[in-house]
């Protein structure tokens, strides 16, 4: 056991040691791509009416006239100190902007994964249980359809249907305009619970429902399909047949042997999905005016706010790399077949 733990520790350390290299590559790429991309933050800030003197003044003030190599080294140095600089357009520290908008994206991501699981797992199980029947086909078609629907279209359709046509959901935002939102951690659902505010909890869930259920629905296909395929494969395996022969009840076989094994690939999928959602679901946040990190990134790109784009990309890269690492280690720990 201790040998295994040592192996796992070595494996984890190897993975962790790769993180700084990955982040250096990502941050350098972001720096180069932003400078190569056409457009100028000065124009985005001043508009097209400013004269050259004002433009030059602002360029100097923002350090954009410095040689690229100097800009790069000071950028890398600052990142090493976890200093992402100040937003070019708002002069606010980038880290503050990230800290303010990240909870919104994480909250949406968490509830979307939850919805995807709650929709996807039953669909997969129903399909498998009714193999070859009408319900199975419906579950399969639904699963495939959710892959095929472009997220922006799904979001707009849901908004049109539930917010405009039925008027049962807010059109956008995270909290009612006319209410004061609780401010503790930035996670509104959690903050409402911590502040014992039932109305705020109801309001935040009400605003969260449509975007998270819609996103969850669109992600549910992956969950239902992989659960169905993996469970099917597991239920046909020798050790399940052996268990049946030994007279173990079907329920026990399913819960104790088949399901845990079938869930292993789903842990990987969930981890990767959560990692990608940590960076925000861009089109969802834009459609639902959800003030998360992806919406910020979208605005920063259009404003050519170099420092903010760099900061958000690097921060979310860190988050994604860390989540991936966590999933890798978890899978390595859970699945004894994996060599490390």
């Amino acid at each position, binding site marked *: 056991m201790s040998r295994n733990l040592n192996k796992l520790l070595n494996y984890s350390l190897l993975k962790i040691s790769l993180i700084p290299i990955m982040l250096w590559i990502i941050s350098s790429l972001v720096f180069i791509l932003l400078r190569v991309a*056409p*457009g*100028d933050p000065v*124009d*985005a*800030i*001043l*508009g*097209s*009416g*400013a*004269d*050259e*003197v*004002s433009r030059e003044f*602002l360029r100097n003030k923002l350090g954009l006239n410095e040689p690229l190599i100097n800009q790069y080294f000071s950028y890398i140095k600052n990142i090493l100190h976890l200093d992402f600089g100040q937003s070019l*357009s*708002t*002069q*606010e520290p980038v880290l503050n902007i990230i800290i303010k908008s990240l909870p919104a994206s994480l909250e949406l991501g968490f509830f979307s994964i939850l919805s995807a699981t709650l929709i996807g797992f039953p669909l997969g199980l129903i399909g498998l249980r009714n193999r070859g029947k009408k319900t199975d086909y419906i579950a399969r078609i639904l699963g495939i359809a959710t892959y095929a629907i472009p997220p922006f279209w799904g979001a*707009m359709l849901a*908004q*049109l249907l539930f*917010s*405009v046509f*039925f*008027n*049962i*959901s*807010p*059109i*956008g*935002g995270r909290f*009612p*305009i*006319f*209410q*004061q939102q609780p401010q503790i951690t930035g996670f509104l659902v959690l903050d409402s619970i911590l502040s014992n505010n039932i*109305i705020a909890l*109801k*309001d935040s869930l*009400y*605003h969260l*429902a449509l975007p998270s259920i819609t996103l969850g629905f669109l992600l549910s296909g992956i969950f239902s399909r992989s659960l169905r395929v993996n469970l099917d494969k597991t239920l046909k395996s020798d050790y399940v047949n052996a268990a049946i022969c030994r007279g173990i009840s079907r329920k026990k076989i399913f819960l104790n042997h088949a399901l845990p094994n079938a869930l292993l690939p789903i842990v990987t999928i969930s981890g990767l999905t959560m990692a990608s959602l940590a960076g925000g679901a861009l089109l969802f*946040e*834009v*459609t*639902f*005016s959800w*003030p998360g990190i992806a*919406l910020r990134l*979208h*605005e920063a790109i*259009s*404003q*050519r706010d170099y420092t903010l784009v760099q900061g958000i990309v690097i921060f979310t890269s860190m988050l994604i790399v860390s989540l991936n690492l966590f999933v890798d280690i978890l899978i390595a720990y859970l699945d004894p077949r994996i060599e490390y």
Partner: protein
Amino acid sequence: MKKKIVLSIFIILISFLQNSCGSKRISKKIIVASSGKIESLDPARANTLKAIQLISSLGDTLYELNSNGELIPELASGMPIISKDRLQIIINLRKNVFFHDGTAFNSNAIKFTFDRFKRIGTMNYILGNKIKSIETPSEYSVIINLNKPSSSLNGLLTSVNLTPISPTFYKQYSDKFLNEKFVGTGKYVLTSFSNEVQSIDPYLNYWGEKPLNNGINFVGYSNSSSLFGALKSKQIDVLLSNSIDDSQRKSLNDLSKNKQFNEGNSPFTELSFISLKTSSYPLSNLNLRLALAKSLNRKLISEKVSYGLRKPSRSIIPPILKKDNQELWPKYDYLEARRLLQKENYCNGNILKIPLTYRSNVPADKLIALTWQEEIKSSLKDCIDIELDGVESTTVYKNLSLGIYTAVLLDWTGAYSDPEAYLTPLLSCNEIVDGICKKGESVYSGSFWGSNKVESLFLESEKISGIKRLEKLVEIEKIAASSIPYIPIWISSQKAWSQNKISKPIFNGAGIISLSDLELINE
């Protein structure tokens, strides 16, 4: 039977959800929505229409422009007194006006605000080197000393960026921005601020007429569909039209005609035009520029792209700023365009290729370009070939002065209500060599056009005022219209729609909606 039961359950569920979800709207504040968010409420930094709209409700300027473009004193107690040499402006200030922090408004506040804007204002280029100094001879009188006579005083005196702020409150921020607070003298006080939602309440000690409502909640949505849907589903009370799609404008326009909403319009102030690079072949040739101008069917473009909601324009000055409303630019006449092109040896197997750049992130631009391209294909196929190229707007602005674009679609809204705010940025030039502008505003507008005559008329116009000045400015436009460095397409207005329970939105001459006049008329 089973289906009926399912349907009934669905209807009951929807009705239940409609009535039970979320907290009920108990606030009597009016919800005003527009696109985007507000990054800063500092008047020295604000540059978006939305921020300017909010600041104009939280603060007062020295003067305001009415819908006829005339100066109306606000914090000034009367009209400005201008010295004979036009280098000094004396403004007497209103007494018994208090900032939201309780301190008194006086001439020091004006000096503090102007100096601060000059020092740190992001858009301080609108002041240029116009103001030499500000004197405060008494508590309620200021003297603005100018470096040279300026004809754009109305713009300075009504600029929202120069909204007086409390020197006491902003003491710590005299050299830096204060983004999330605002302390002015306006009809409303700021009660809460976030980038997405802002809330304002009536200011009880306001010196003038009190607002007709109990306050405003300002909300920003990130896309046009959300704004449109929010108004239709009655989740918001008033919608400001900046950056809403033309098809949605049309739909709201139709609904307003059917009395489902109230529609308010600002004066037409946003000019869309094509900038032609006059410094190199082919568009250095006047006949070719004229032929292009005559090939543009503005009426068709307006109908196809904006459903007729944007006004075709053959002038670069908005109608509100011209007394005679004369349209000086060439009319659509494709036969004449063909004749001109033939004169320059085009059409007979020789096709004039014009690359037209449009801003890919401005939906109307692409549609204008496509419509013009198709129109030319149908009437001048053998003479002109328009090649389209979509480029993101910030890239376009950066490259304009480099002379990359032969023809490019742009728009312009004057920083203040004066013909000069349209003519100077498009036509003025500091250094002209052989009719080509080497340095100056027309370089930054991509035309590189320069005229010594125009420059001398600009100088002359700064020394005079009234009708005579206007005549000089019209003369400048006439010269430009005969040289065609630009082709005006249309002129647009801001629009706002309100629910029927709210009064119709009213705009002032600067395109700002008067939030204090919004009133709940049917609760």
